[in-house]
């Protein structure tokens, strides 16, 4: 199909998904700080306000807790808000509404309501914005039953998963790595969905499984090319969905390769890789492991401002190559 080859950036893909949702359903509204005429801090909403007006593309005051709460209340009563945090770090102000209200309301009320809210969290480091604008807090929300938590890694998935999120009756949290916004990739036109809860095998291989999230998928694929040249055949799994997690795909891959490396940007301790590792260590894949499970995660530090330190604080391609090589060659 000719439409398959069209390329969009990750942010354009999200914008297109939002436009489709706004067009299709008058209940959909966008909310967030400076998403109107400014177009969003990362220009993801762009000019949508011109097409849909300020009643559908709502600038909120700088009130993350209240704004998230308004989105939750609106979702419970009939709207389908897509709420943008300007940076995921500011969600620290709104955890109450996300975790105590959105995630639990259906349960606490015995099924009497659903909370179809979508929240978008621009996340991650690499922009030189230092410790309070660079965090990767997806593990927190992944720990919370009642939420669905996703991390699309490609423009294709960003669009399809956002459209799946809008259609989902439950609260869906989308972590978008800021460095992906400009990345281009093929994006089909029109409406389509990519299911929440399914991982994707981005490269198949036999020697080692790398499960990576978000931007780390691309770094892992780059590392896999280097490793291929050394004769190491890596399978790269794009996790895509943290809650629910597609254990079956990961287990099957590890049963095939006998080795697992988890690569993620969030702080290593208690990050996504901890869960993947633990899930495998209690699964039927455990007996098939030929090597320890290794995690490459963010450093145990806040994200520093200095660009060299900043790079050193999260996994990079050479580190992935080295860790994979050691794992396959049996170096401890």
């Amino acid at each position: 199909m000719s439409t398959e080859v069209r390329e969009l950036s990750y942010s354009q893909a999200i914008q297109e998904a939002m436009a489709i949702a706004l067009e299709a359903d008058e209940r959909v509204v966008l909310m967030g700080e400076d998403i109107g005429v400014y177009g969003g801090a990362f220009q993801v909403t762009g000019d949508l306000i011109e097409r849909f007006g300020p009643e559908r593309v709502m600038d909120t005051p700088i009130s993350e807790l209240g704004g998230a709460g308004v989105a939750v209340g609106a979702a419970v009563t009939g709207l389908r808000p897509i709420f943008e945090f300007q940076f995921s770090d500011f969600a620290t102000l709104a955890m109450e509404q996300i975790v105590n209200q959105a995630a639990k309301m259906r349960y606490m009320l015995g099924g009497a309501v659903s909370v179809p809210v979508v929240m978008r969290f621009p996340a991650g480091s690499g922009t030189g914005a230092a410790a309070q604008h660079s965090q990767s807090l997806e593990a927190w929300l992944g720990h919370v039953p009642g939420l669905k938590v996703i991390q699309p890694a490609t423009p294709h998935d960003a669009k399809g998963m956002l459209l799946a999120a809008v259609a989902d009756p439950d609260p869906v949290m989308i972590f978008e790595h800021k460095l992906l916004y400009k990345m281009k990739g093929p994006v089909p036109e029109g409406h389509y969905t990519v299911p929440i809860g399914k991982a994707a095998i981005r490269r198949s291989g036999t020697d080692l499984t790398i499960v990576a999230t978000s931007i780390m998928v691309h770094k892992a694929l780059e590392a896999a090319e280097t490793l291929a040249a050394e004769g190491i055949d890596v399978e790269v799994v794009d996790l895509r969905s943290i809650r629910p997690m597609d254990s079956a795909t990961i287990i099957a891959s590890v049963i095939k390769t006998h080795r697992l490396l988890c690569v993620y940007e969030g702080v290593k301790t208690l990050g996504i890789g901890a869960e993947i590792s633990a899930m495998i260590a209690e699964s039927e894949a455990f007996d098939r492991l030929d090597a320890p499970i290794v995690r490459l995660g963010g450093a145990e530090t806040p994200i520093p401002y200095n660009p060299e330190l900043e790079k050193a604080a999260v996994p990079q391609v050479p580190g992935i190559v080295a860790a994979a090589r050691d794992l396959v060659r049996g170096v401890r």
Partner: protein
Amino acid sequence: MTAPATAPAATDSTNLPFLYRHYPREELLGALRRMHLIRRFEEAAEESYMRGLIHGTMHLSIGQEASAVGICLPLTREDQITSTHRGHGHCIAKGADVSRMFAEFFGKTTGYCGGRGGSMHIADVSTGNLGANGIVGGGIPIAVGAALTAKRLRTGKVAVSFFGDGANNEGAFHEALNMASVWKLPVVFVCENNGYGMSTSTERSTAVPNIADRAAAYAMPGVIVDGNDLSAVAQASHEAVERARRGEGPSLIECKTYRHRGHSKSDRNRYRTKDEIDDWMANRDPIARYEAQLSEFGIAGAAEIEAVRLAVRAEIDAGIEFAKASPAPATADLADYVYTEQQ
């Protein structure tokens, strides 16, 4: 309280307080019934708690019934409220069935929350109650969201958010009231000021003497009413709800009231005097005051009031029986309701 043997005719209705001018007799008696239902419901819940039928904790609104009932009087069933940890009264005032409330408190499947929520999450979405809330101030932005839906989808609904004096120092209060005002949303903020947030008096916690003094910071009307005077509450609510329905934006109503009981089941009552409590109970009980007015204005005499009391008592007893007889959820169903079943 004794009513005159024959109720005097309300000759000049223009001199009567708002409530009596505005509502027909059966609605006035309905309000009385709901006030008694709240009082008796909470007394019965307290007894059940003492007898071990209910676990956890609960926050009783005994003494605050006029606020819950008065605020809800001008609301339709479609209008929506968000409530608080002290939310039994709001739930009943909005029209919930006490049987299903007891069932919830007893942790049964027939409860409003299927036994998952209990007192602190009591809700009846079918009568517009989006739920009590365990988080002080948590319901305020949610009500603003409900008002946003009403405005965007042009449903004509009004949202009401109940909260306490303590809640007014939460950031959520500030952010929510500001947004409601900037967006001119159809929402009414109702602060039930019972003088204390748990043990902390408003004087020790709040920089201004009245919560309504803060309305000006959000460019909305702020009115203070005697929260134990049903008519005064109903009038303030009527005006705020009409304003909201006309599209003129939010209002803040402060109902000055008092809780007779401790904050929750673990209160040693060290922060207020027995005299203060006794005074409110003896001289400002909202039900006694309302009954006196009903008599005075010739709407209901002692016999009719007694009939309401008896009917309420029967309704409560039946509710408890229903709750007792209902099944508890199976532990196998623990994970029900975490997510919405998808097609």
